[in-house]
């Protein structure tokens, strides 16, 4: 949901003469601040800031007050920010809760081995979620080329867990039936899940055949030499291995389906 606050700032006399431009720049650099308007009269600036919760208004205000060129600061108005249903949806999905904590440092993007292939880097994905750009995010390929290496997760200074976020976005994209045309990862995931639901274990040959038939049968030709090498070394069983408790597993999955809930 978030909170929008309007703050009024008066500069110290000694700075007011020619410190206006620098002061404005400094204020604009704060991530919470959206706009800074110069005004004349009792105050020098009117600021609009968006924060996560009303209590954060106080910390933004004291951060501004602490600047040596600020004489005094008054709060004009505090109101609920414009609703962002997509941000709320992401935050209520397991793994997506932490996007509000992101400070946009870009460590995730710098750490990602596959960022070059992504429509939007992990940092941009978070910025887009917070801007409410639901369609852009859920139809991008970014989450589908995440290889779950967790380098971003261990390096994030704010514990945002971008890998978990990517998985949450994949589930949301599945749930809403949105797809990115240029990646076949969703088709592979579907084949993988089907293989488990039918046998209890993954049957690699079955999974690959189903995947290539669904996406690009010609590409399968390229894979034949590798398949034969694995086959001749006993690394590619032809038949799936069904677990004995497959009906038990199916009962569990059916019940989960009924209970639905968290995507």
């Amino acid at each position: 949901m978030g909170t929008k606050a309007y703050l009024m700032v008066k500069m110290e006399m000694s700075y007011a003469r020619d410190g206006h431009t620098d002061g404005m720049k400094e204020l604009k650099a704060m991530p919470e601040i959206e706009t800074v308007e110069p005004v004349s009269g009792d105050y020098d600036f009117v600021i609009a800031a968006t924060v996560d919760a009303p209590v954060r208004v106080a910390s933004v205000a004291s951060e501004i007050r602490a600047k040596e060129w600020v004489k005094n600061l008054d709060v004009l108005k505090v109101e609920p920010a414009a609703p962002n249903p997509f941000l709320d949806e992401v935050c209520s999905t397991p793994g997506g809760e932490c996007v509000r904590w992101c400070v946009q440092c870009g460590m995730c993007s710098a750490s990602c081995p596959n960022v070059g292939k992504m429509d939007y880097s992990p940092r941009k994905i978070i910025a887009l979620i917070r801007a409410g750009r639901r369609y852009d995010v859920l139809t991008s390929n970014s989450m589908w080329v995440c290889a779950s290496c967790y380098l971003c997760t261990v390096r994030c200074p704010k514990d945002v867990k971008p890998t978990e976020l990517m998985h949450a976005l994949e589930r949301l994209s599945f749930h809403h039936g949105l797809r990115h045309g240029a990646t076949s990862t969703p088709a592979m995931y579907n084949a993988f899940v089907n293989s488990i639901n039918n046998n209890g274990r993954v049957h690699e040959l079955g999974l690959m055949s189903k995947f290539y038939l669904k996406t690009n049968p010609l590409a399968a030709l390229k894979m034949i030499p590798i398949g034969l090498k694995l086959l001749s070394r006993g690394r590619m069983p032809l038949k799936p291995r069904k677990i004995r408790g497959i009906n038990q597993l199916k009962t569990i999955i059916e019940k989960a389906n009924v209970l639905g809930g968290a995507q």
Partner: protein
Amino acid sequence: MRYYSYFPGCSLEATAVAYGLSTQAITGALDMELIELEDWNCCGSTPYGSTNELESLCIAARNLALAEKTGLDLVTPCSSCYTTLNRANSQLREYPDLKGKVDECLATAGLEYKGTVKIRHLFEVIFNDTGLKTIESKVMNPLTGLRVAPYYGCQLVRPEPSFDNQQNPQSLDRLIASLGAEPVPFPLKDRCCGGSLIIPELDLALGLIHQLLESAGSNGAQCIVTVCPLCQTNLDAYQGMVNSKFGTSYNLPILFFTQLLGVALGIELQGLGLDKGVISAEKVLAPSVTMAEPAT
């Protein structure tokens, strides 16, 4: 003798059959017994968790419920199973409402999971419980002169902090050294091989594999040792494809750490699945293997 519940994972029945063989072959010598979890199912891996959260937790929880009955630590040689089962455990702790639903689903199948199972990676178990001192004392064929690149991959040390540094791990380096071999510097030792993206994003994964082979090869490695079935398959089976795509000529055998351990411990070679590799390890292991013959 130490006892563990054992979760091999689907890969060990297929592409990583050598990992399963070599694991079972060395346990005796290391005074440990792995008791396979009866009728385990797939952990769900990343694809299931990226499709449906509740279902993915349920299928992981079936394994955890079965394992809880044994009262033993659940040990898996697969880094993906390790991360997935651990993730399920922590999700069930952190989301009580999800746990409630999972309990309900398990109950329909007559199962219950209290949340007490400890999931461990086979490498961590051997490194910590057996220990390098014991291993060193059991080495029959020191792998002297063999230059090995220690490949940790991603999911042994990430995301949860565990027994080694998360960005510059050292444990596998030390294990290799304890076998008499030489761990070479391998700057990309904890970087991604592409995992299961090798199927839908082939070019992307080939690029990552190429970088890994370059990093290991340029540091003089004669072979790469891994702790993960996906890493082994990607680097071994797709090495030829990398060579034709990038005009390189890598011929680096990719061994499981259990295979290297088996050779050094003097275990009968037939049982280690050394013939399963697409890139033959025969040449680089030849000096150690010849020495191993009288012992077998």
